[in-house]
Structure formats: C-alpha cells, structure tokens
C-alpha cells in the first residue's frame, strides 16, 4: 500500500460538497481506474491527492507517513490534466526541463547535457520518444507521454490521469495503454479517471466507483464482467425513447451523394481529423443556400456554443427564435416560463436562473446547450460529438432527445466516433475517409461493426 486516503471531505465556496468522507487506497504498481458520473467528485479527489487542492477534513497517508504539508504530495504525485500544459514551439527535452535547464558558465544552457539527461530518463522508464522532436509534430498520445516524462523527472511515485483518452483515437489509446503497462511493471502506480468501461476492462487492475461524493465500491477488475460494472455504475443502460417509423420522409439536403432525409438519423463516422470540419462547413453552406433552419450542437461547447461569462438563462435564449420572447423587449414572464420548462424537460441541475454557466458541470452545460438548440423548430439538427466527455447516463439522455427529434420528422445528422452508439440509434451510417464519404450502410446492425471498422482505415 503506497497511498491511503481516509475520510476526505471537501466543500466548495459555492456550497457544493464534492467529497463526502471518501476512502481510497492505492497499491504500488497498480493501475487503478476511477469511475463515476459527471460531477461525482472524481476530479476533486484527484486534485486533493495531487496537492492542488486542500481538503476540509480527513488525512492522506503516503509511504506509511501521514502527510502534513501539501508540498510532499506535490513532489511525489504527478497529475496529468486533460488539456496538456506544453509549449508547442519547444522540443521534448526543453518542455521537460522548462525552468530547470542545466547550465554552464552560470547562464548558458548546456544543450548536450540537456539531451543526455532526457534520453537517459526516457530510456530508464521505457518511454519511446525522441528528445529532439517538437511538440507540435507529436500525436496526442506522444504528448501525453511527454507529460508523463515531465512528472517522472520530478521523481513521482504515483501518476494521476484525468480522462486522458477523451480526444484520442483508437491507435493513440492503444499506444498510451501500452505505456501504462510498461510503467506499472516498473513499480509506478497509476490512477486514471474515465467514462469508458471498455478501457477500464482492458487495462485496470482495480476499480473504484464514486457516486455523489462517496466511494460506492472498490473491486478487482477480474472479479466482475462489464455488464455487472455498468449495472453498478448506472442502474440502467437502455434508451427510453423508441424509434417511430415516419411514413412521409422527404429529402432535405444532399451531402456529396448522401441524401439526408427528414425523420431519419444519419450518422457520419470516422477516425478523428478525417475531415468532418469540412463536412460541417458544407452542410452549413447548403443550408444557407436553401434557406433551411438548422440547429447546431458544436463539438466544443464552451468555445463555439455557449458564452461562459453569461448566466444560464441568457445562454438558454436562442437568437434564431428570440422573437417569441417579445418583439422589441424580452418579456420577463415568457422568459421565466420558458426557462422553467427547459430546466424540467432537460433535467438541468442548477441553483437559479442567474447562475453563471461555467459553474456547472460538463453534463449540465451540454444539457443547456442542447435544450437551447432543440427548443428551436428546425429542418436539420446537426450534432457533433454531443456526448464528448460525458458519463453514460447523460449520454443516453442526449441520444434520447435526438431520437425524439427524429420522431418529430426532423432530419438529424450525428457525427460521433462511437460505433456502438451509431449502430443503436441511426437509420443510416456513412463512413468518412479522407474528407469523403467512403461507405454508406442503411439500417445497420451489430453484425456490421467489423465492416464499418474496416472501411474507417485507409488501405
């Protein structure tokens, strides 16, 4: 046992109890997965362990010594965030040694020693990287490895990852997991937060489930199968809303040679960076040509879909149909009743209409965005990765809403990297490769997975 947390309690200034007497144990050399819904308190617990936050009560034991000073945690535990803190213009060695470079004659950077040092570090920890490579040339998995090396240079014993694979593709994931295994074989402990059960089954030795601030269960991965775990996590895993067959379908637009019909869910699927940005631009162009109304759920909710300086209420106002709140001046009563309706309909957990949007958890933020876009009666709904970084329950909820929209005879276009989701809800799947539609399949079933995967990869 290398790390032990006892009855960690943390209450934030805004009254949210993020951790409510959590107990958590990590052994040396183990890969420990932390599962839980959005806002369950996983990230807070990890930040406390990494010494970035301090807890209100409870204590942490590291190497059989009770920790009094946060700096001890900071020196022994490295936390790697979802957004990497690297300088793109610098090379790997410079990034690792930033602020700590070996010098000669007092102030000149000793390049030769710098690269020697880093090469030795990478070699001892079995990290396959070239210390001269620039960060901007690296894949996401390699960048993550640079972050790992940065932490290892500090001499940490435990590494914490906050949803490391959220934006990785399959190959990058595999590569990172191989690295995890190599590190744990060398005796390093790894804790990682994730939403993806498949990943957990692949590499974790032990799993802890956190639910609303307390630890619900801890068990060895081998002792349970995936269904039992998801049962423990969510209770339910099925769609609530049934697809209805729409009789009067009509073609709304055509993307390349793919007709998009009303009352259907059309899914575009492909490995990351395969040109869905261009496809989105083309869809927008076609829509403005034909004067079609479009609801757009962007991939990056904070930068493209919401205004984080504004309140929840203001973010819920859709500019495209704001006339329903009054011709010139917004009517307070109509706005209020619309707000209450949306909050109930989309199960948004907030403290009040004036709360700032960036105080919400990711899932609630996404619900606000989706409520705004779907409350607008449009011809096309375009949703790009609508469940990115969200837990299974919220993700199912969002998919339910998209199905409802299709049942109302709207054309729904979904762009997602998740094949299982796509097969479950869509009428049509088309596989993207090199900015083009490579393959179209109608009414897909589980048997088509292999075929779809094959078409996603360039030969």
């Amino acid at each position, binding site marked *: 046992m290398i790390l032990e947390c006892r009855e960690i309690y943390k209450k934030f200034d805004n009254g949210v109890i993020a951790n409510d007497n959590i107990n958590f144990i990590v052994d040396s050399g183990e890969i420990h997965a932390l599962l839980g819904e959005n806002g369950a308190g996983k990230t807070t617990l990890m930040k406390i362990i990494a010494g970035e936050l301090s807890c209100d009560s409870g204590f942490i034991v590291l190497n059989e010594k009770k920790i009094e000073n946060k700096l001890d945690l900071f020196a022994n535990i490295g936390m790697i965030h979802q957004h990497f803190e690297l300088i793109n213009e610098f090379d790997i060695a410079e990034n690792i040694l930033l602020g700590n470079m070996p010098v000669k004659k007092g102030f000149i950077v000793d390049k030769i020693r710098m690269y020697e040092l880093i090469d030795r570090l990478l070699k001892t920890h079995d990290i396959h990287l070239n210390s001269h490579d620039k960060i901007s040339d690296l894949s996401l998995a390699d960048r993550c490895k640079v972050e790992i090396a940065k932490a290892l240079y500090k001499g940490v014993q435990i590494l914490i990852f906050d949803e490391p694979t959220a934006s990785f593709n399959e190959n990058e994931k595999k590569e990172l997991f191989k690295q995890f295994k190599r590190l744990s074989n060398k005796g390093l402990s790894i804790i990682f937060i994730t939403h993806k059960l498949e990943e957990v089954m692949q590499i974790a030795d032990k799993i802890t489930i956190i639910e609303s601030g307390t630890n619900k269960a801890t068990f060895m991965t081998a002792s349970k199968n995936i269904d039992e775990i998801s049962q423990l996590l969510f209770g339910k895993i099925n769609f609530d809303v049934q697809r209805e067959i729409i009789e009067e379908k009509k073609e709304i637009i055509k993307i390349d040679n793919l007709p998009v019909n009303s009352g259907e869910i059309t899914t575009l699927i492909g490995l990351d960076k395969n040109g869905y940005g261009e496809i989105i631009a083309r869809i927008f162009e076609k829509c403005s040509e034909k004067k079609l109304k479009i609801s757009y759920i962007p991939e990056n909710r904070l*930068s*493209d879909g919401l205004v*984080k300086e504004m309140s929840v209420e203001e973010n819920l106002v859709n*500019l*495209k149909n704001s006339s329903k709140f009054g011709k010139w*001046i917004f009517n307070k009563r109509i706005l209020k009743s619309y707000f209450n309706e949306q909050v109930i309909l989309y199960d948004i957990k907030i403290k009040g209409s004036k709360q700032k949007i960036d105080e919400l958890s990711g899932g609630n933020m996404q619900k606000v965005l989706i409520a705004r876009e779907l409350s607008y009666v449009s011809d096309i709904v375009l949703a790009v990765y609508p469940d990115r970084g969200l837990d299974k329950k919220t993700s199912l909820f969002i998919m339910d809403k998209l199905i409802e929209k299709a049942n109302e005879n709207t054309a729904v276009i979904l762009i997602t990297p998740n094949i299982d989701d796509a097969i479950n809800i869509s009428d049509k799947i088309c596989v993207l490769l090199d900015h083009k539609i490579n393959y179209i399949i109608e009414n897909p079933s589980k048997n088509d997975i292999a075929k779809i995967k094959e078409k996603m990869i360039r030969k």
Partner: protein
Amino acid sequence: MKNKKIIKTFFISILVAIILIFIFSKNPIYSIRLFFIAPFTKFRYFANIIENMIPLIFTGVGMCFILSCGEFNLASEGCFHIGGFTAACISVLTTNICIHNTVVAVIVSGIIASIIIIIPAVIKMKSGGSELVSSIMLNFIILHLTNYLLMKYIRDPMTGYGSYELNLELKTLISNTRIHSGLIIASIVIIFAYILLYKTKFGLEIRIIGNNKKYAEISGVNISFVLLTSQWIGGFLAGMGGAIELLSPIYIRYSWTNLLGFGWDAIIIAILAKNNPLKVPIYAFMLAYIRTGSYIMERLSDVSSDIALIFQAIIIIVFISDIFMKKNKGVKSC
C-alpha cells in the same frame, strides 16, 4: 471581480494618494482633509460633485456599449470634445434662443461624434488595424482640429482662447448651484441603455459578440452591423454628453484647448460597472468625488490636483491586470 476586490483597490489607491500628499505637502493633514472630506462639508462642493458626474454618466454609459461588444475603441474622449465644439458652434451662430435649438444642438453634436467613432471601427473591419491605436490617435487629431477651427472661426478677439459668448443654455435645476437639466437626460439615458443592453435581442447580440464571437457567427448574428451600431451608440452618447456639458451653466464661452478627460474616465467607470449602465452612476459619482476633492485641494493648499490622476491610474492598473489574469486562466473542470 467581487466587491471585496473593488474595496481593496480603493484602499490601496487611497493609501498611495495619502503617502504622496505626505511627501509633497507642507501641511499634509490639512491637504488630506481638503481632498477627502471637504467635498461633503459644503452644499456648494457637493453640487460640484453632481456637476462633474453628469458628463461622466454620458461617456460611461457610452463606453458600456463599446466595451460590451469587445472592441477597445477609446475615441469617446474625442467624441466628447467634438460634441462640445459642435454645440459651441451652433450656440454661437444661433440668435434665436429657444428649447428647440438646444435640442437640435445636442442631437447634431451626437451625430457628428458618432460619425467620428465609426472611423476606427471601420478601419478595424476593413484592414484589421487595431482600433485601440487608431482611436487614441484620433482623439489628438480631433483636439488639434477643433483648436484650429476655434482660432479661425469662433474665437472672440476680446479673449485669449475663448469663443464668442454662448447663446443657448440648459436650465438650472437647483438654485445657487450649477446642477442643470442634463441630470434628467442622463437618468433617462441610463434606463434606456440598460433596457437596450440587457433586455433586448440586440443587447444580447452585442454581449454575445463581446464574449464569444465564434458562437455569434454560428448563430447567424450580423456581426459587422451589431459592432458598428453599438459603437455608434457609444459615440453618440459621448458626443451628446460633450454638448450637454458645454451648454450647461458652467461655461459662458467655449475654451476647451485641452482634452478634459471625461472620455478616459469613462473607461474606468465602464470597467468598474462591468458594462452595466445601472451601476454607472455609482462609479461616476465616485470619480466625480475624487475630481472635486482634488480641485478643492489644489485651490486651497499646496498640492496639485494631479494626485487625482495618480489615484485613477492605480485603479486602472489593478483592474486591468485583473481582467487580463482572468482571460489567461483555463477552463475549470469539475
């Protein structure tokens, strides 16, 4: 920015001002009393605060519109100046003294000022040139242009740098003071601006553009129209403020050969008020109080009124640095 922060900033600024007075004054306690307490000791002094506050409300509310849409167009100083100059010209040239002509003078001044403020906005839109630089340059162009026009056309040879006597004048509200009907117009402007900025679709569009241009673009907002209109309103209000200030009972002749600083102060006010017009009068009152205190101190003691400028500069430094710190912070995850 919390209220605590504002109080802390003021505490620091007051402390620095006191230290400076101690260094420069032979009788520091007396000077400090004049600076901070004297404005409240006599009704006449208190009225001075209100007089100083009126132009600050106009430029401050105008600045709320400009900063709300995310542009740092600082031409409102120049707009204020040219607004005053235009009103002076009209006032000198008219012989028929009636309320209509006063209203016309104020509106024409506003329109001319709003044309001026559009220049940096258009330069930014067409060529990407920084509106910050071009607007500051523009202020000085306006200053020298109006000085030239003053000398050439409306200077009264009997005076040094003054124009002929102004014919139009706003009514005084309270006798024995120079508090004028501009205060009523200012109140209307505040309410109008608040409703426009916070209760209408147009206001929502302005604020969305200011905070997240990409989202505004995706939602189909006509960005250039909204940007130009909101800056246009800002310039119009500043110009109107200049005209109203000049037509107030404070001035008998037009003699603005230097920038008066009401436009610069508007930036502090708008930032402190977080672009909310309803909060503008509070901070306008505060800055007017500092101005008035420093004038009294300059008149009656050996310390110059420049202390007030240092005071304001410290407020700006602390707040601007706070805003930049916020911008550089990443997105929090829960």
